[in-house]
């Protein structure tokens, strides 16, 4: 897995924005992580802690990572049933036909961060 490099990308996006705004320290960082986005929340938390320990000067004392999980959701194009997909993502539990389209669950976003100049 590559959550360390993903966390590098996340913090780069945050820092680019914070330095433009003249913000000195990063506090809370909030992410939206989709269930089928290929990113693992636990590994992201570990990566965040590691980055923070190694770059204490960039973070406030109570900096933390908040992850909002986005459940996967699919809709059958034949019968309209909305369902939470299992591994067989396209299989509609109602018609038993592979006619489902993913609606949600692929998001992987930096939602927000808190900045501080203390």
């Amino acid at each position, binding site marked *: *897995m*590559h959550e360390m490099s993903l966390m590098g990308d996340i913090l780069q*996006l945050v820092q680019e924005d914070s330095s433009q705004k003249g913000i000195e320290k990063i506090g809370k960082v909030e992410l939206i992580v989709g269930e089928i986005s290929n990113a693992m929340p636990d590994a992201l938390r570990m990566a965040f802690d590691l980055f923070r320990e190694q770059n204490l000067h960039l973070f406030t004392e109570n900096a933390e990572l908040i992850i909002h999980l986005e459940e996967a959701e699919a809709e059958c194009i034949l019968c309209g049933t909305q369902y939470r997909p299992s*591994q067989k*993502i396209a299989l509609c539990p109602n018609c038993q036909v592979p006619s489902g389209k993913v609606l949600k669950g692929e998001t992987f976003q*930096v*939602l*927000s*961060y808190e900045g501080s100049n203390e």
Partner: protein
Amino acid sequence: MKVTLRTDVLTNNNKAAEFNRELFESTRTLVVNLMSSPGAGKTTLLEETVRALTEKYRIGVIEGDLATEMDADRIRAMGAKAVQINTHGGCHLDARMVAASLAEFDLEEIDILFIENVGNLVCPSGYDLGQNHKVAVLSVPEGNDKIPKYSQMFMRTELVLLNKIDLLPYLDFSVEEARKDLSEINPQSELLPLSARTREGLHEWFSWIEGAYLKCVQQ
């Protein structure tokens, strides 16, 4: 103070992928991103592909590996231009690595570019490289369970090459089951059974490439 970003984590990768895509479009180069687990036979398949198509098309290959030039050397031996990217432990290629390696090609002189991703069925699937097509290679000895287990890979590929079908008589692999599993994950995806070793089924793969190439240059 709270700042709302709502920015995709892979924004920088996606920008580089767009850069690559525009370049590929302007030079009318067909680009195929090949992904699989280690040992599925991507390089052997590419050797056979280069051997068969090199008289008709100018082929380039980007080889992604953790380390060594071994795969690029095998492709060069077949007469294609090959550039090795070593990720030094990184589990996937990203669009920036591909963009950097493109400087070593004259894309005007390349009709078809294959990108052989790092052997890994998880990480490469999320990274857009700017390719026209994502193709997965699965091999018979890996077993039927790989398609449902790695559904996030197979939901993002449009073609699955089922390699090493010469081993079907010796192993409990069901092509029908693989086809069914794939259709239940990604009904738009196709499964092509073949063997790079015995060359059975390779013609269907070559026809697929030629069809994709025609579509690419007609656009």
